[in-house]
């Protein structure tokens, strides 16, 4: 009787080990698939949707943690969730890239026009014997310094765009637009419609 019981216990142990190793394989494969997919699109996605990349990374980490604890069912579920998040990354990154590219296109039409108009006015005012009403020497000097600043920042924004740093380029463009509006207002110029609001 004792021998039969020992055999039964050993059999149950073997069965549970088998079941465990059956769950381990799919979990391992699911984690590897999610990790491979994430690594393939991560670099591009990080430029446009870093928060979504982090969510996918967190899901993958949860899968790995569960796997390390031997909870293969949880590991598989977390890896499946990570894979779903990774699958959405490419489309979301492409959409964000298109949105930023469109915004850049608008700024790159508007801002050179504003800078050129300001330069033109500053050139003329520099030759003028007097300044117009509502513009004193101090304000004019401020406008000239501001022009040099936006000219430089616009150059940096253009370089950032060429290097693929769309978000950085747009952040710089935004500061150029705000400053250009301020200078045009100081100089009594009409701000283009696209720069309003």
């Amino acid at each position, binding site marked *: 009787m004792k021998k039969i019981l020992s055999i039964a216990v050993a059999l149950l142990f073997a069965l549970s080990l088998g079941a465990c190793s059956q769950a381990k394989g799919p979990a391992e494969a699911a984690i590897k698939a999610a990790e491979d997919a994430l690594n393939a699109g991560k670099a591009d996605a990080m430029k446009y949707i870093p928060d979504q990349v982090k969510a996918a990374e967190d899901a993958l980490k949860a899968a790995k943690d569960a796997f390390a604890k031997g909870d293969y069912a949880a590991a598989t579920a977390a890896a499946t969730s990570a894979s779903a998040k990774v699958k959405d990354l490419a489309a979301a990154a492409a959409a964000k890239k298109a949105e930023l590219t469109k915004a850049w296109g*608008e700024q790159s039409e508007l801002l050179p026009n504003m800078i050129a*108009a300001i330069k033109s*006015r500053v050139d*003329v005012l520099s030759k003028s*014997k007097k300044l*117009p009403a509502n513009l004193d020497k101090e304000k004019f000097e401020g406008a000239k310094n501001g022009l040099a600043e936006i000219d430089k920042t616009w150059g940096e924004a253009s370089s950032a765009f060429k290097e693929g740093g769309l978000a950085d380029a747009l952040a710089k463009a935004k500061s150029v637009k705000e400053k250009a509006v301020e200078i045009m207002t100081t100089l*009594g110029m*009409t701000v283009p419609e*696209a720069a309003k609001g």
Partner: protein
Amino acid sequence: MADEPVQGKGNDPTDATQWHEVKKGETLSKIAERYYGDPGMYTTIFEANRDRLKDPNLIRIGQKLRIP
């Protein structure tokens, strides 16, 4: 305000060209004084509008002039 500079002539919202619509009694010198503080700078406005002005003394009410 009637004396405000006018928006660009075209429909391009990115156009930053500066325009002035000529009012009754205005001369290029007065317009130059208004924008540049110096009536003597009227030649700058005249040169920028050579495509529409033949004579700096002949401007029409309602005419739109580029202000560099």
